[in-house]
């Protein structure tokens, strides 16, 4: 669930949001000629893979679909251990996962025919949704045509918590004098937060939080949810496709300002399973492929995951707060 800072209502931007929303639909629906039609270019929902897509009167059952999607990944839960009369709630608060694969450099090659620099990558993510925060630790080794023999692995730790973003030389750097360095990276905050909200759990949380702004369509027989993010990402529209199991299989984001290419992403999720050493019945994708700004960004196989709301904290170093204040 987005924290208050990210839940800010943007009613004064409603017109803008609607306009961009329509733009997104035009892109995703193949630029059909009349965007004012119901569904903005896509067929309105009449049936979904789960059978839960149609509500009373035949209207699209967005709430029912979101519940099905939440249950499909083990996010909506209740327990009979004294909780039989409590409602189902979103139990995903913190999570940690480890993967390996390929990430790509963001620098454009000097010749258009050259491939993007690619790195073999050990990928470790710790995340939380209350408050929204994420720590991405990568150890990257050059590979492919651009590899330089003998180059030392590049180790990076990128962190975001709400409006604060920083880089760490070691996990928790900058919190105790003399133990590592934290460097403010405020310009990266929105990009890093976006990575959190486009994970399957973030998509469901944000779609629920968007309330009536979340719309449901069908495209090529699949259920598609569209909604705006909120807070500092209120300018970003999300389009999420559900697979036959109601699990999020594809997420596309579009900023209202095309110049913000880092916020234009496309992510594919597949191979859902309970990947935890300790079983939780929380399903996570085993394979993540992402493009950012139209270019490959990462291709990661998830090795293991801890979804048991592990102890993950993201205190903001004092120097990062100072940097944000100036």
């Amino acid at each position, binding site marked *: 669930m987005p924290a208050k800072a990210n839940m800010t209502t943007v009613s004064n931007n409603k017109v803008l949001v609607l306009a961009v929303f329509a733009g997104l639909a035009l892109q995703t629906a193949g630029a059909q000629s009349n965007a004012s039609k119901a569904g903005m270019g896509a067929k309105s929902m009449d049936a979904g893979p789960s059978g839960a897509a149609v509500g009373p009167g035949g209207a699209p059952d967005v709430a029912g679909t979101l519940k099905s999607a939440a249950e499909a990944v083990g996010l909506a839960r209740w327990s009979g251990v004294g909780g039989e009369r409590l409602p189902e709630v979103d139990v995903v608060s913190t999570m940690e996962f480890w993967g390996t694969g390929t990430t790509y450099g963001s620098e454009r090659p000097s010749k258009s025919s050259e491939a993007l620099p690619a790195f073999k990558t050990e990928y470790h993510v710790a995340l939380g949704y209350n408050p929204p925060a994420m720590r991405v630790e990568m150890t990257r080794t050059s590979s492919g045509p651009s590899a330089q023999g003998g180059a030392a692995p590049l180790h990076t730790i990128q962190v975001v918590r709400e409006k604060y973003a920083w880089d760490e030389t070691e996990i928790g750097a900058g*919190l105790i004098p003399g133990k590592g360095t934290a460097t403010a990276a405020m310009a990266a905050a929105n990009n890093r937060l976006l990575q959190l909200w486009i994970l399957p759990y973030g998509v469901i949380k944000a779609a629920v939080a968007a309330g009536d702004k979340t719309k449901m369509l069908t495209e090529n027989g699949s259920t598609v949810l569209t909604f705006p993010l909120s807070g500092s990402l209120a300018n970003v529209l999300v389009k999420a496709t559900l697979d036959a199991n109601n699990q999020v299989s594809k997420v596309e984001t579009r900023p209202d300002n095309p110049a913000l290419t880092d916020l234009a992403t496309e992510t594919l999720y597949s191979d859902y399973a309970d990947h935890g050493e*300790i*079983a939780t019945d929380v399903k996570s994708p085993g394979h993540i492929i992402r493009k950012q700004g139209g270019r490959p960004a990462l291709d990661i196989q998830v090795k293991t995951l801890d979804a048991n709301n592990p102890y993950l904290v993201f205190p903001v170093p004092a120097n990062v707060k100072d940097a944000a204040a100036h």
Partner: protein
Amino acid sequence: MLRYVRFSRAIATLGLLCLLPATVFAQANGGPRMDHENTLPPTPTGPTPRTPDGHPDLTGLWNGLADNLLGVPNQMHNVGIEVGTDTTRDIHSGAQIATWPLQKRKRQNNEQNERAATLLRRMGSNRPIYKPEYWQRVRDLDANSNEEDPSNSCMPAGVPRMGSPSLIVQQPTYVLFVYPGQGGLIATATSYRMIPTDGRKHTNLEDLDGTWNGESIGAWEGDTMVVDSIGFNSTSWFDQLGGYFHSENMHVIERLHRDGNTLTWTATVEDPDVLLEPWTTTPRVALLNPDPKAVLMESLPCSERDLAHVVTKEHH
């Protein structure tokens, strides 16, 4: 994948049975029920009685949504997750949490119930902030709590993990706190604390042998009873879950405030050896047992029999 062998249903059933003694005790005394419809604290009613010296009288048998760990609703209350009929809120961060109102739903087996309970108990955002060099240790202790949690070996829960006392006897120069062994998450033996309120000072820390409950001294700050404790061992954990270890330099300040028929308890943990900053529990609100004939029943002895049969890391 490092998947371990699936948790046996027999173990899950044993876990549920652990809850029974406390449940029977509480319901027989007009106390709390396990089937809460929400996790909201009780609303205070009635006057707050006072002793002849003018202080609020904390004497009574206290239970309800507090540390009578009767299942998920209590544990969610204890970590600050307020579940209503169709809304859920984290009282510490203010975050609204997606909620799907109760309706007919599929039955779950014990495995599913226990796994969900483990997640629900850990939803809260109010976590102590350890120094970074201890973050992994906390995670490891929690993940391996079947073996690492001292309560799972029938060790005392200690202060402040015991939480709010179930029985308070208030005298002019001391208060007596009684904590019945409850089964469930802190399946420990009955414990008591005799806490002086006569104005004495703490013994020097270096002269104290560390214990589970430490040396406690009580004093009134206005209408709030403040219990200050030092002199702990480093074996106990300081909250019901999470691998929250501490050093022998832990300092605990408990606050108990009576409002009518409710008692609100909090504890602040200071431990500069391992914590970056002091940490305060979620306020836990207990309800006065209105039955004048209610008594504390004898607790069943804690006898660890399950650990040898556990084949996974799944845990409370």
